[in-house]
């Protein structure tokens, strides 16, 4: 009997000991539960109750993460399930920030607010997805990885399909659900194979040893399948087909959230994977991660940027551009030891800001002049001068032209890859550099489509629906200022970055 339960108190104390480090997550759970209750009782009389509760929850979580600061657990918690480190803290802060901005977007989105079922549930689902994402950035056990990925995916299927106001939104949600389900199933199968070969679920030394003495063909298959699962979240090349359709179909606030939140969580997961496989295995005898990711990065940049050139729908174009940026960030992953770490973090933060701002403005214009396509933007520059000036600066930052944060991000990534090239003189880093430069020029084509139509062309004076979402533009303005400030004084961010 005791053999099965050797030390209940020990295990129990190990479990409860870890709780102390999970305060932010607990805050989120509390907010979720509170939100559900409030939605039942108070949402008739006071519509924004749940929103405030969610915002409060996120605020508390962020504050707790910051308050924890550097009191971090030395070793993994809950028997090697979770390892909260300074990296995951940075990621968590980004998630909370993105979620708060999502709330701002939802507050001002007319379509959401007038929704029959009210937006209470949406905020609760948001909290769950944020919880899932923070676990994704901390989990070092394959079970935990799968659990958190599923939590985020299922949550985001619901968010995409939440309104289903028209056929396109429904279609987007079904596509997202089916594609996501299949990919997570593939990942699950990959994990099962890894479990089969190594007998352990902990991402660590044992797993790497196990994979090494298994014939390289089978270990490569297992890892490729898992990578496909992670790829779904990151939407890099072979697994990117879903993102343009879903981004275009989903309501704009949800698209904004999807393109930043889960994607960055995917990066966190990939980082954890690479850390284990790089650190543990000196050489990568059985699976060459560096080359794989380089090729993926090049392919992603090419596909993302070149197909964006054709797009007319703004959200679809921004979808492809986010694929392009994914490729760029992957470039940072390849040269982690040459400053790629800090470059990748910096770029991720600036990417989140840029994308959020871009979608905010796209949403604002969509509501005020219900223009969705670039040609539809013709002549709007004169009617919304402030909005479009901010839009231009954000797009410049997305392209990576100086005085903006985007340029510094690209510069850092370029110099880290150049460092990698200088060290190894391999062909791939050089190919990545040149692709990066060329795709930057290509990205100018489609990013400039918006200001060209808005300012240079004169459109018919369509009716403008007057709604009270001026604050949206001012938040976008704030983000723009941050982008410019970071562009000129990058120390603002890099000082706080780890690694």
């Amino acid at each position: 009997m005791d053999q099965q339960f050797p030390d209940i108190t020990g295990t129990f104390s190990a479990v409860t000991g870890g709780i102390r480090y999970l305060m932010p997550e607990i805050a989120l759970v509390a907010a979720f539960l509170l939100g559900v209750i409030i939605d039942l009782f108070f949402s008739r009389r006071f519509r924004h109750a749940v929103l405030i509760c969610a915002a409060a929850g996120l605020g508390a979580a962020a504050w707790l993460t910051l308050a924890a600061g550097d009191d971090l657990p030395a070793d993994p918690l809950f028997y090697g399930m979770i390892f909260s480190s300074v990296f995951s803290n940075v990621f968590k802060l980004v998630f909370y920030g993105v979620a708060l901005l999502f709330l701002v977007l939802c507050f001002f989105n007319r379509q959401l607010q007038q929704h029959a079922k009210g937006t209470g549930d949406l905020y609760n689902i948001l909290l769950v997805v944020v919880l899932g994402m923070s676990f994704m950035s901390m989990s070092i056990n394959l079970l935990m990885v799968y659990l958190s990925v599923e939590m985020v995916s299922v949550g985001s299927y619901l968010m995409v399909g939440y309104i289903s106001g028209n056929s396109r939104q429904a279609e987007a949600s079904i596509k997202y659900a089916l594609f996501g389900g299949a990919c997570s199933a593939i990942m699950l199968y990959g994990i099962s194979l890894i479990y089969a070969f190594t007998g352990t679920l902990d991402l660590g030394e044992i797993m790497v040893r196990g994979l090494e003495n298994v014939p390289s063909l089978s270990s490569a298959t297992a890892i490729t399948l898992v990578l496909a699962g992670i790829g779904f979240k990151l939407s890099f090349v072979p697994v990117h087909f879903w993102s343009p359709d879903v981004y275009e179909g989903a309501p704009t606030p949800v698209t904004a959230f999807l393109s930043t939140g889960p994607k960055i969580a995917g990066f966190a997961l990939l980082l954890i994977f690479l850390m284990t496989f790089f650190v543990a295995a000196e050489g990568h005898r059985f699976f060459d991660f560096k080359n794989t990711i380089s090729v993926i990065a090049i392919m992603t940049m090419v596909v993302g940027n070149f197909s964006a050139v054709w797009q007319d729908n703004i959200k679809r174009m921004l979808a492809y551009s986010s694929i392009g940026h994914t490729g760029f960030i992957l470039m940072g992953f390849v040269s982690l030891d040459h400053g790629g770490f800090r470059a990748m973090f910096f770029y991720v933060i600036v990417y989140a800001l840029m994308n959020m701002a871009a979608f905010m403005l796209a949403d604002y214009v969509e509501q005020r002049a219900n223009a969705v396509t670039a040609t539809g933007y013709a002549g709007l520059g004169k009617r919304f001068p402030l909005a479009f000036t901010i839009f231009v600066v954000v797009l410049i930052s997305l392209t990576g032209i100086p005085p903006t944060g985007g340029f510094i991000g690209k510069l850092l990534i370029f110099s880290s890859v150049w460092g990698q090239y200088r060290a190894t003189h391999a062909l791939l880093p050089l190919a990545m550099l040149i692709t990066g430069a060329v795709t930057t020029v290509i990205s100018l084509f489609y990013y400039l489509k918006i200001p060209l139509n808005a300012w240079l062309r004169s459109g018919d004076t369509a009716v403008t629906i007057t709604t009270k979402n001026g604050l949206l533009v001012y938040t976008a303005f704030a983000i723009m200022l941050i982008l410019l400030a970071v562009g000129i004084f990058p120390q603002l961010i890099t000082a706080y970055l780890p690694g």
Partner: protein
Amino acid sequence: MNLLSVLVFSPLVAGLIVLVLPASLQSRYKYVALAATILQVLLSVLVWVRFNPSLGGVNNEHTLQFAEKLSWIQLNVGGDSRLQIDYFLAIDGLSMPFLLLTSLVMFVAVLSSWEITTNLKGYFALFMLLDTAVMGVFTAMDFFLFYLFYELMLLPIYFLIGMWGGVKREYAAIKFFLYTLFGSVFMLLIMVGLYFSVQDPLTGDHTFNMVHMMNPANYVDGSLFAKFSGQLLLGIPARSLAFIVLFVAFAIKVPIVPLHTWLPDAHVEAPTPVSIVLAGILLKVGGYGVIRICYSIFPEAALGYAWWIGLIGVVSIIYGALNALAQRDLKRLVAYSSVSHMGFVLLGIASVTAEGISGAMMQMISHGFLSVMLFFLVGVIYTRVHDREIANFRGLSQLMPQYTFFIMVAFFASLGLPGFSAFIAEAFSLTGAFKSAGVNGLIPRWMALGGSVGILLSAAYLLWTLQRMFFGQLRLSGGEPWRLLLTDVTIREKIALVPLAAMALLLGILPGVVFTQINTSVLDLVKLVNP
């Protein structure tokens, strides 16, 4: 407060003021802009006066004047090195004349912006941003800062041409943007490469500082661009590939013949003030870039390719002049004449002799004043009758005598009549080119004579235009309404034109005013490039 920073950023402040002012004060914007440019003119005169001509300072930091060096970005990029970029503004003989030229040209451009009517706020804000960017380019001594200002120049011009331009403005604007961006993206790669190859002697970190890039001692041996590392990049020795890429990037701005096709489109479609700035300053950025970056950082490559650069110069002179001869649109004619005049600059620089480079510098300054005056005069007609076809006007001298006087001054000055600055510039560029065969054997003698044919051709097309448009019996294709419209130059226009003509005359009679200022720097440059 250091003079240069004020000079560079005062227009930016004015631009912000314009942005902040409510739309109701629309007519006040141009006065704010005017005040900013006048302040700039005063400051650059102050700089001119306090400039000490005996300090060369091309490649040693101590003799650079008005230097201002603050550490700006300290990123430890992990791994071995810290990204060290410092805010380093300074001027020497090579960049100092351009400050006065830029502020004067900006003053004239703002004066000619009275004709702009649609959304003034955007216009003047962009204009001030452009002014800051251009001033920054001329004063930046840190490659990163230089690249930042260089890129910053593109956007305002794209929007200024795109939104206030002529019929095919979109095509011209994006064409300009793409040409320059194409050049500058690869410049970014070279810059990063240089950054990794150069070490700051004091702190040991990598640096973007141009002065350190100039002396080979600072290169990490074995690094990509080290002098004797013989590293190959795509099969070509790295340093010469870097020189070619940088030269192409700046040549697009000069412009040289194969890459000049954006100039006529951009000038024809741009509104007058923008084409004034385009011709007056932006072409000089190309020339300045070649001297400051290509020639100082890669001197041996410069010597290697001198023959080719000289050839390109001569071809530009003759090709530009012949094209100008065939033009029917006055503005396009002036644009092609700019291509031809800038050919002299290239020829002068390629000769790497004191006379050649001083001639090239003088040509850039004199062309700055003269092309601005020409574009302003074309603008005067265009604002009155919205037509620039040479064939549509005959005998304007009776209708607009004062205007004809200014046109004749501008035409004769730009065809190199002695007494005006263009003659001194072209004569010494050619003499320098001719002398280089004997002194350092870089340029064959026939190139100098080929260049002098350009002087003849410029006389041909300018006088032909003068004769067709201004002399003979009065016959306007627009008939009577045009006769009423074509009033003579107004006071405001004269305020803009007189200083330009005066400067051209002053530099023609007393070239020493410029030459003494730039002489030591030119000698240092020649010693640096051709020890």
